[in-house]
């Protein structure tokens, strides 16, 4: 087990290395001069530009730039951004908290709605509720999140005035973006849950549980649930990793001050240190969450052996 974790962490470093190298090369290839475009449309004093390029090490060859990045990263330093000239970590920290808040809210919605809907659909198969849930999940999977986000905004903000249009980080302003973010996963979780549960309900050990004289509640909540939940936990774990990496579209629509929005703005401004910071963090979190999910999987299903 310990060995397994160490090996997986080693793999994580390799993945991080690969991701950042690709990122660096991509940013290098991109047209335009990040420093030159800082002033917007106004032409800049060449001397200032030259000094800035020197200050950010942009004159160094790419491998040297990368080497410096890795050296700083090892000390937890992601460099200084181009626009505010503040440390990237300092800029991203509060945004990260916001993104995490949104991700946690979305996952809670996924669990509550997705698991419950899947459970109902499976237990009352082919009933009105099952058909309704199947229909709704199909819609939810089919609509892109920006459509869902904007429709929610139109109804709940513009027409009903229930929530603020611009998010201010309060719980009230979090509800719509969290739902927008959660709807797709909740639908997928509901379908996953329904499918596995129907399979588990047919399993021999469920028949054994009934034959043991257990009350229906115990059969369902213990024997069926515990087995049905395994793939859902796996799915949600990985989904959580993706969410923590920042939700670009949702955060942009609701102006949610998270790392997704920061990434969108940074790309527009060619603010490379922010881009690198967000992407590096996103990759690290995703890989780490994957590891946690695998460990959790082994806990939930004793047949899985980590080696």
């Amino acid at each position, binding site marked *: 087990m310990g060995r397994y974790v160490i090996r997986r962490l080693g793999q994580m470093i390799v993945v991080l290395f690969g991701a950042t190298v690709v990122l660096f090369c991509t940013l290098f290839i991109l047209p335009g001069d990040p420093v030159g475009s800082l002033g917007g449309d106004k032409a800049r004093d060449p001397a200032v530009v030259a000094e800035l390029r020197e200050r950010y090490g942009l004159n160094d060859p790419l491998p040297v730039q990368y080497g410096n990045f890795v050296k700083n990263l090892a000390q937890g330093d992601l460099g200084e951004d181009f626009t505010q000239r503040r440390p990237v970590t300092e800029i991203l920290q509060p945004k990260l908290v916001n993104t995490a808040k949104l991700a946690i809210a979305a996952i809670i919605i996924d669990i509550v709605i997705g698991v419950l809907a899947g459970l109902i659909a499976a237990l009352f198969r082919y009933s009105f509720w099952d058909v309704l849930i199947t229909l709704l999940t199909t819609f939810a999977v089919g609509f892109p999140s920006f459509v869902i986000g904007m429709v929610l905004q139109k109804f709940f903000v513009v027409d009903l005035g229930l929530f603020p249009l611009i998010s201010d980080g309060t719980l009230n302003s979090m509800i719509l973006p969290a739902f927008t973010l959660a709807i797709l996963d909740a639908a997928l979780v509901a379908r996953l849950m329904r499918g596995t549960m129907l399979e588990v309900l047919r*399993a*021999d*050990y469920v*028949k*054994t*549980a*009934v*034959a*043991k*004289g*257990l*009350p229906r509640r*115990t059969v369902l909540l213990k*024997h069926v649930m*515990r*087995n049905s939940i*395994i793939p859902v936990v796996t799915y949600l774990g990985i989904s959580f990793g993706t969410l923590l990496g920042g939700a670009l579209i949702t955060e942009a629509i609701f102006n949610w001050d998270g790392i997704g929005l920061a990434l969108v703005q940074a790309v527009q401004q060619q603010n490379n240190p922010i881009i690198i910071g967000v992407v590096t963090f996103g990759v690290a979190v995703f890989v780490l969450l994957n590891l946690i999910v695998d460990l959790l999987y082994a806990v*939930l*299903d*004793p*047949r899985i052996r980590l080696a």
Partner: protein
Amino acid sequence: MTTSHVTADVPAQRGTDGETPVLEVRDLHVEFKTREGIVKAVNGVNYSVKAGETLAVLGESGSGKSVTAQAIMGILDSPPGRVAKGEILFKGQDILQLPEAERRKLRGPKMAMIFQDALSALNPVFSVGNQLGEMFRVHQGMSKKDAKAKAIELMDRVKIPAARSRVGDYPHQFSGGMRQRIMIAMALALEPDLIIADEPTTALDVTVQAQVMDLLAELQAEYHMGLILITHDLGVVADVADKIAVMYAGRIVEQAPVHELYKRPAHPYTRGLLDSIPRLDQKGQELYAIKGLPPNLLKPPTGCAFSPRCPKAQDICRTELPPLVPVSEQDGTELVGRVSACHFWKEQIHG
């Protein structure tokens, strides 16, 4: 030997010793609704088991033997399955009339079932100790600690080595034979009056089959339980059963005390089954097999369901359903406990 005998529509049967059977199934019909129509899986089964007695139910896959067992336990998949007709008397009380809550309380303390494949019949994500202890926790409200102690005791009882250290292990960590012992332990946990074992040794290695069967027989004798042993393996039956009921297409076609059935079958289907047992003295010869396939229960053949496969079938067999009738000696003395559903049982048994 046992004296309870079974016929198509004879009502209450008591053994001559006046003892009420632990279980008596009367004219049981079970149907399954499918897209293609109604499948009549069980069509009027009658049998009974007394305390300490072993009834073997023999038949091919699809003959309705497992469905009958599930109907007794009340664990039919419903829908699509349902008991269409009949009575299931447990100690004289028709349990089909009981509300589900009462029915549930019978499962475990009064009647229990052992399934064929213990690997799939045990829940993979709970330890065997948990699953064994569950019987005591749910039915007797025992504490977790006491239930675990009981689980260890049970595992010892079914001769699982190092029970104390293995109680926390999961089903996949046991061998097939050990897993089936755990299934047996679970069924015996609350010392029920009736055990139904649905092909308990089919999924096991031949070497382990005998051990598991012996264990089951030993525990049955010790607890003086009624045992219904469902199997298609005639070899397993001979040693442990008191009487045998042979099922075909949802009906009992013959019932007899075990040794008499082997000696003188009174139904061509039983004859066919016995002839298909490989025998050492016939080494080198082609193994006998009953020709054809079991009937489609969506549209069972008219007359005797076995007639399309029967080597001795006559015209009457294809038109008239043979009733289950008592079998007698040539001189007319009744053969106690023997019945056959063949128009030509006389020819079959007396040659």
